């Protein structure tokens, strides 16, 4: 991936440069921090260290536009849908890559294809529904240009005119026109797409550590959709991704478990940050040894709270895949999350909808292999997550608290020093390493700063 990023950099005059050294502009900038040196876009320069994130990155329209170009339509993989949602030829779903509308469709040849949901003629949407089946083609309602299920232009209404009058010029070639196509990758039932043909293979993109943990939850099983919900977040999309990667906030912002005295004692856990910083896993698991040592072998729930659940069966689960891991939050840059919280399994698609607006699409999953009892556990434990989730509803509003809090602080910076300054994997979850990892990948993908030699 590195060589191509270099090419992109050299092609982009937007690369961050000091236009003037801070001391030279002392009379103008004496009250501002050193980072107030401006780039060509008039933005303060991105700080060198990973522990600082300037707030303007959540506020600027030009940043939003560049993200769409460099990240969402760049050499990155975006989650599109589940393979199980398009099982038959003629099945399709419409979704987005960033804010670009796309169609994912299964053709008669049995293969999946992805392409922009945009007519090559005048740009109208080709498909107007969230999903469909038995499609034979896609025909634009505006002027009836039609497309195959692979996204190829196959027909233009009145192409030859009527009675020799009108029509397209003789040199008009259907093959020269069409919506942009996506490269697709299917991984354990997850369909990813990229507009950049040069994106690395999904396996290389994710790396073994992330791959193995996707496989852990989804491998060899057939997901069943239990429900879909969308949350409209009043904040920049990156504030939600930071939140997902932030293992530091979990027991502080989300008080459900502590309030009800649900303290799992024998727990071990940690975080995994991919080498690029882009992707992460946060996990916790029952620690059998610690439990036995502490004499908690037959009671791993301690209640030292004034409150207890009237129906504690909410937390009566089963081992999700036969191991001791009870929580695994996994993110794929730029905007995908796979979650296992006890037996609540879900995928989340994060879609920017403007500088200060984000769509969060939840798809709750079960598996074909579930027993009826296991299915009930999943439905019950879905109360933990989603827009009304006991341990996730706060994530819906906290990004908005930041967005509103920083309104007058474009030149100020967030502080990310918990657990040090690196973006490395760790045994502790009291760290912001995976948040720093996000920014490491982000600033590289956005050409905000040349990475120094390691």
């Amino acid at each position: 991936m590195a060589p191509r990023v270099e090419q992109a950099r050299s092609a982009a005059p937007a690369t961050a440069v000091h236009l003037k050294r801070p001391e030279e502009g002392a009379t103008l900038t004496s009250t501002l921090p050193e980072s107030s040196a401006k780039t060509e876009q008039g933005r303060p320069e991105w700080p060198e260290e990973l522990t600082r994130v300037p707030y303007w990155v959540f506020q600027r329209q030009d940043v939003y536009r560049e993200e769409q170009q460099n990240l969402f339509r760049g050499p990155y993989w975006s989650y599109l849908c589940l393979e199980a949602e398009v099982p038959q030829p003629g099945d399709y779903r419409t979704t987005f890559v960033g804010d670009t509308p796309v169609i994912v469709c299964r053709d008669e040849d049995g293969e999946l294809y992805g392409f922009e949901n945009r007519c090559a003629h005048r740009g109208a949407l080709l498909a107007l529904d969230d999903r469909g089946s038995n499609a034979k083609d896609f025909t634009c309602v505006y002027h009836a240009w039609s497309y195959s299920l692979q996204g190829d232009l196959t027909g233009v209404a009145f192409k030859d005119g009527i009675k020799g009058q009108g029509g397209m010029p003789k040199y008009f070639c259907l093959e020269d026109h069409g919506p942009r196509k996506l490269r697709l990758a299917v991984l354990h039932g997850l369909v990813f797409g990229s507009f950049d043909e040069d994106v690395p293979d999904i396996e290389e993109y994710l790396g073994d550590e992330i791959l193995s943990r996707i496989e852990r939850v989804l491998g060899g099983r057939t997901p069943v959709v239990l429900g879909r919900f969308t949350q409209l977040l009043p904040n920049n999309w990156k504030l939600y991704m930071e939140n997902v990667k932030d293992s530091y906030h979990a027991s502080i912002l989300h008080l459900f478990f502590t309030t009800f005295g649900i303290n799992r004692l024998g727990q071990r856990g940690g975080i995994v940050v991919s080498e690029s910083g882009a992707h992460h896993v946060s996990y916790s698991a029952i620690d059998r040894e610690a439990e036995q040592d502490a004499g908690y072998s037959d009671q791993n729930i301690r209640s030292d709270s004034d409150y207890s659940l009237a129906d504690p069966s909410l937390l009566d689960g089963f081992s999700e895949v036969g191991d001791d891991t009870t929580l695994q939050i996994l993110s794929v840059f730029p905007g995908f999350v796979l979650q296992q919280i006890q037996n609540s399994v879900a995928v989340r698609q994060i879609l920017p909808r403007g500088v200060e607006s984000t769509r969060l699409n939840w798809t709750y999953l079960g598996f074909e292999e579930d027993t009826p009892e296991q299915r009930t556990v999943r439905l019950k434990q879905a109360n933990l997550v989603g827009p009304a989730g006991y341990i996730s509803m706060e994530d819906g509003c906290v990004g908005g608290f930041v967005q509103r809090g920083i309104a007058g602080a474009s030149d100020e910076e967030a502080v990310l020093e918990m657990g040090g300054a690196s973006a490395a994997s760790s045994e502790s979850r009291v760290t912001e390493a995976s948040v720093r990892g996000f920014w490491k990948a982000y600033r590289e993908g956005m050409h905000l700063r040349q990475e120094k030699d390691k």
Partner: protein
Amino acid sequence: MTVTVDAFRLISRAQGEYARCIDDGRMEDWPGFFEEDCHYRITTAANHSEGLQAGVIWADNRRMLTDRVSALLEANIYEAHTYRHILGQPAILEESDEGARSETGFLVVRVMRDGSSDIFATGRYLDRYRFHGDRARLAERVVVCDSSTIDTLLALPL
């Protein structure tokens, strides 16, 4: 067999009190509108028409509703807000002396502390009531929201 109970009157009365309870912020009284072995869930029209079972809130007994209230009052963090429920007239779909099935349209305005009032949800209650003398209690309430999008978060029940 003639039905001697006026289902419309019992259900209208129960629903008026239900809405007033939530809108007045008396959360702790809310589970009392349900039977002990009730089912309550909030879902969307899209999920409902596809037969998908999950809810943003999902309970198969009244104790789970009590826990929902305890969590809202003691654990969960959200900005202070209130609802204003505007309910349509219940359509009685099935009735007997023991209970009835009904459907009622609703509109809920959410009022935030900064004064903004927005239509938070519209939809319908798909209900199964059981009658106890002059009272009707919910054996099942499926809250089917028209939109599949929830703004920010859903804390107070619908």
